[in-house]
Each structure stands twice: as structure tokens, then as C-alpha cells.
């Protein structure tokens, strides 16, 4: 327990809540959720989404946060405490590697948002006859510029993380998240007052009940509920490890994080679709929606400079708070494992991510491939590992009694245990098998190579950790056997 004695803590409840919700609110909330909602039955999709959010994401986040708060360690330290000094600590290393790979290409997306925030600041979008398609194409084909923006993104992340949990992350998110909220509210108010805007809201909210009977609707809702909340990636565990012993988890780390995150998605629906429909733009998602369609629409609006600035600064803040959280997982773990200073850990992890991110910044096919592998199997596998660890190895019953209900603003009853033990792992297995089945015919090379790499990662990580454990750490565990 030596590393926990002088462990830093969140400075305030508000700071912790903004950090966790900021970690979950990213590009997907703004450029994906509105479109997915409209495409999958509108209100019917939202009902499926709410059900899954409360049944899976909220209980899962509670479990992950309470494990982190209990062990007060990063990923590897937590796995070592639960499994003992043996090869199974390698499972924590698997999750850490997925996180680093995820951040290596997410950094490029942060870089894109910085570039567009810069153009919003200098007023590019409101110039006469400005062509946003040409800007996106010029940017996409300029390798040096994309690597440069990836570098700028990592430099900002490095600078913030160097200042620590309280002085860096908390200080930044306490103003970034409120600004993001105000920006989206302002754009939403402007959007819904545009002529023809109601068609956008009709597209998003009009319930098509037959969609509730379609498996695809539930799968899309499941994907959004899981990936948007970042369940099982080690973020909630890491942020939870900086909580005080008697801080609440169920309400803040569970309900507020999951519902607050989705609230930003709802705000994005109000901000994006009225504008899209008012300007007669075809509803879409991803980079095309944000960087081409919306950028063009802002240029045509009265006071377009302000709306573009609010949107792209807000978009940058949403991406940056997520990037900080993903990177912090590696920083906390490296600092503890190497028993080194925070500065050294930040420079090392950010340096590794920067180097690994260069290929994704240079070539969008590499970014797409990594997103395909990590999104389809890496992250569900990470969630599967963490939930099995909580539910079975540590024992969900003991965790609920010892940590989850300690200092809680809401009492969590026993049925939470079966969700963590059975429901979430079973759903994760189903997702991985479904993605394998649905991708194998369409993209056999990508699917087989991605799965081969993932399959090899597990035994390799376990082998690395088993070699390292024997000499580096004395036997300490809280969850089961030690070796």
C-alpha cells in the first residue's frame, strides 16, 4: 500500500464529476449520436438506449470506479492486488495497451478539431465563397499538417497532465465542461429558431416503434451505450483511484457520469440537426458532418463567426477532455509501476503515444484499421476482462459491501452483483462474436489479422508480466490467491 499513502486526490466533488463526464463526452456524442438516433427509429432508438444505459453502463461504471477507489492503484496495481503476483496481471497490461493504441489514433481526431478551432478563430468559415469541402480535402491530403496537428494535440495533453490531477486535469475540466455546455446550448437555441429547423427535431425524435423489434436497433443502442461511456477501459478505474475513502460512487461515478454523458448527446441533437435540416444538408455523421456540412452551414448563418467559434471550440474541448482521461490511464500506471515522478511518467507515455500515433496521422487507412480492431474487439475485450475481475475474482458481493456502498448517496442493492457477474460479460461476448460474424465476409483480411493480433496480445502480456512479477513485487493481494 506504499504508493497510496501520499496519493493525490481530487480537489472537489465538482472537479471529479466534470472530469469523469468530460472523459466520456467526446467526438462520438457530437458527430455520431444524433445521426445514429435518426437512422434507427428516433424515439424508439432512444428508448432502447436508455434501457441499456441503466441496465449496463450505470452498474458497470459503478463497479469499475469502486474497484479503483478500493485499490487506489492504476491498472496494473489493481490487477496485482486482485490476482496476486502472477501472470494474470498481464490482463491489466492488455487493457493498458488497448488504451495507448486508442489514444494513438484519437490524438489525430483531437488534432483535426484543433485545426478547425483555429479556422473558426481566424474566421475562415464566414469568408465569402469559402469552400469547406476544399478545406477538408486540402487538410486530409497534407500529411505534414496532420502530423503537426497530432503533435500539437499531444503537446497540449502533455502540458495539462504535467500539472497533475488537481492542478492539471481538474483545473482544466472545471472550465472546459461548462463552456462546452453553454456553447452547445447557445447553438441549440440558435438552431431551433432557424426556419425549417423543426424537421431536424422530427427526424431525431419521431418514434418509429417497429424499430424496437429490430436487432440492429438494440445493437446500435448497445454500441453507443458502451463506447460512449468508456465502460471497462480503465478510465473510471483510474479516476476512481483518486477519490477519497468516503466519497460517493453510485450517484456521481455511476448515474451522473452515464446520464450526464448522454445529456451532452441530447444537447448535440438539438445543436446539430436543426441546422442540418434548416440548410437542407443531408443528415450524416463523422468528420463529414462536422468539418464539411456544419462548417459550411455556420458560414451561411447570421453571426456565423460566433456560432462556428462556439461549435469548434466546444468540439475541441469535448475531444481534449477525453484525450486527457485516456492518457491518464497510462500515466498513473507507469508512475506507480516505475516508482517515478509524474513528469517523467507523463513525458514517457505521451512520447510513446505521439510516436505510435504518427502512422495514423499520416494515413487515414491506418487510423481506420486501428479503430476497426480496437472498437470491434479490443474495447469489448477490455470491458469483459474488467467485469469478470470485479464480478468473479474480487467478488462483486464483497466490492459492493466494502467499497460501492461506502459513503454512498444512494444504496446499491444486491441485484447489481448479477449484472456485473453475468449480464455485462455475456453481452460483451455476444458483441465480439457478432462483430466477428458480421465482418468476416465483408472484410476477411482486416477481421482475421485484427483478431490474430488481439489473440496474441493476451498470452504475450501474461508472459511479460509473469517474468516481471517474480522479481519486482512482493506478494500482496486483496482479492484471491497469491503465488
Amino acid at each position, binding site marked *: 500500500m506504499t504508493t497510496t499513502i501520499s496519493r493525490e486526490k481530487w480537489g472537489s466533488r465538482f472537479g471529479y464529476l466534470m472530469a469523469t463526464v468530460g472523459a466520456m463526452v467526446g467526438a462520438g456524442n457530437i458527430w455520431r449520436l444524433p445521426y445514429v438516433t435518426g437512422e434507427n427509429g428516433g424515439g424508439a432508438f432512444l428508448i432502447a438506449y436508455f434501457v441499456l444505459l441503466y441496465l449496463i453502463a450505470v452498474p458497470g461504471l459503478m463497479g469499475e470506479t469502486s474497484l479503483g477507489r478500493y485499490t487506489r492503484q492504476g491498472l496494473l496495481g489493481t490487477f496485482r492486488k486482485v490476482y496476486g503476483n502472477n501472470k494474470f496481471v498481464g490482463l491489466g497490461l492488455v487493457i493498458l495497451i488497448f488504451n495507448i493504441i486508442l489514444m494513438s489514433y484519437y490524438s489525430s481526431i483531437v488534432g483535426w478539431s484543433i485545426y478547425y478551432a483555429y479556422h473558426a478563430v481566424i474566421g475562415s468559415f464566414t469568408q465569402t465563397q469559402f469552400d469547406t469541402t476544399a478545406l477538408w480535402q486540402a487538410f486530409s491530403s497534407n500529411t505534414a499538417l496532420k502530423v503537426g496537428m497530432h503533435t500539437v494535440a499531444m503537446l497540449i495533453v502533455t502540458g495539462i497532465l504535467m500539472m497533475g490531477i488537481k492542478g492539471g486535469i481538474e483545473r482544466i475540466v472545471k472550465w472546459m465542461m461548462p463552456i462546452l455546455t453553454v456553447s452547445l446550448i447557445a447553438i441549440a437555441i440558435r438552431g431551433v429558431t432557424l426556419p425549417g429547423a423543426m424537421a431536424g427535431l422530427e427526424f431525431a*425524435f419521431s418514434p418509429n416503434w417497429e424499430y424496437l423489434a429490430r436487432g440492429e436497433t438494440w445493437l446500435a443502442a448497445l454500441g453507443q451505450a458502451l463506447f460512449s461511456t468508456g465502460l471497462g477501459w480503465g478510465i473510471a478505474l483510474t479516476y476512481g483511484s483518486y477519490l477519497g475513502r468516503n466519497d460517493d460512487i453510485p450517484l456521481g461515478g455511476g448515474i451522473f457520469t452515464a*446520464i*450526464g454523458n448522454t445529456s451532452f448527446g*441530447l444537447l448535440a441533437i438539438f445543436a446539430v440537426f436543426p441546422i442540418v435540416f434548416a440548410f437542407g444538408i443531408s443528415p450524416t455523421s463523422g468528420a463529414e458532418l462536422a468539418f464539411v456540412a456544419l462548417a459550411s452551414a455556420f458560414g451561411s448563418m447570421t453571426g456565423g463567426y460566433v456560432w462556428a467559434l462556439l461549435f469548434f471550440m466546444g468540439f475541441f474541448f469535448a475531444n481534449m477532455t477525453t484525450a486527457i482521461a485516456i492518457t491518464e490511464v497510462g500515466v498513473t500506471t507507469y508512475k506507480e509501476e516505475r516508482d517515478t515522478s509524474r513528469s517523467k511518467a507523463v513525458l514517457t507515455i505521451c512520447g510513446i503515444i505521439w510516436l505510435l500515433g504518427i502512422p495514423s496521422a499520416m494515413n487515414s487507412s491506418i487510423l481506420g484499421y486501428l479503430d476497426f480492431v480496437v472498437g470491434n474487439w479490443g474495447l469489448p475485450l477490455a470491458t469483459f476482462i474488467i467485469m469478470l475481475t470485479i464480478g468473479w475474482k474480487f467478488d462483486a458481493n*464483497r466490492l459492493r459491501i466494502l467499497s460501492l456502498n461506502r*459513503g454512498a448517496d444512494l444504496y446499491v442493492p444486491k441485484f447489481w452483483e448479477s449484472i456485473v457477474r453475468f449480464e455485462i460479460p455475456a453481452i460483451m461476448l455476444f458483441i465480439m462474436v457478432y462483430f466477428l460474424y458480421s465482418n468476416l465476409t465483408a472484410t476477411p483480411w482486416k477481421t482475421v489479422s485484427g483478431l490474430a493480433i488481439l489473440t496474441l496480445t493476451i498470452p504475450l502480456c501474461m508472459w511479460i508480466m509473469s517474468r516481471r512479477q517474480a522479481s519486482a513485487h512482493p506478494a500482496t493481494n486483496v482479492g484471491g490467491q497469491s503465488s
Partner: protein
Amino acid sequence: MSIAAIIVMIVCIVALWGVASVALVYSLSQEERKLQLIKKQGGFEPYSPQALRDLDRWIEQNNTSEHAQEMRNVHEEQRTALQKCTSYFYTWNRSDIESLKEI
């Protein structure tokens, strides 16, 4: 907009923004209460009556478990806090506190 879309929109606003706002305000106010208790008496009891019953039941059912001592320590921490403190974070009956025994 159709009536159905308006209803769904209102339900979404209540279920998301409503719940998130209430959770945020309630969580911050509870934290303020905890801070007041810490300032006044140096701490407060970590578990609610329901959570303590779960803890007692676990100790009773797993008395010989390798984790039993840790659970007993937590129980003792709770008992000491309840006896030492004059104000409580959770709602307690005086009789419940007085009947708490060392395990």
C-alpha cells in the same frame, strides 16, 4: 412536429437533463454535508444502516474467510464512528447505534 415526436422529446429532456441536473445538485449538496461533518467532528460514519446490515450479514456468513478480518475492521470503524460522532450523515435510530456490538 408530430405529437409523438414532441412527447419523446420531452421525455428525453426529463430523463436526461432532469436526472443529470438533480444528480449533480444532490451530489454536491451531500458532499457539502460531509465536509460540514468533518469540520465539526472530524469525520462521519461511512455506511448507511442498510449497508451496515449487508456488512453484518457477510461477516456472519463468511466468518472464516480470508477476508473476514478486513470486514471486521471496517465494521469496527463504523461502530467507533457511530459512537464517537454526535451528528450523522445517514439517518439512524438511537437504539440501532446502542445495540451495535464489537464483532
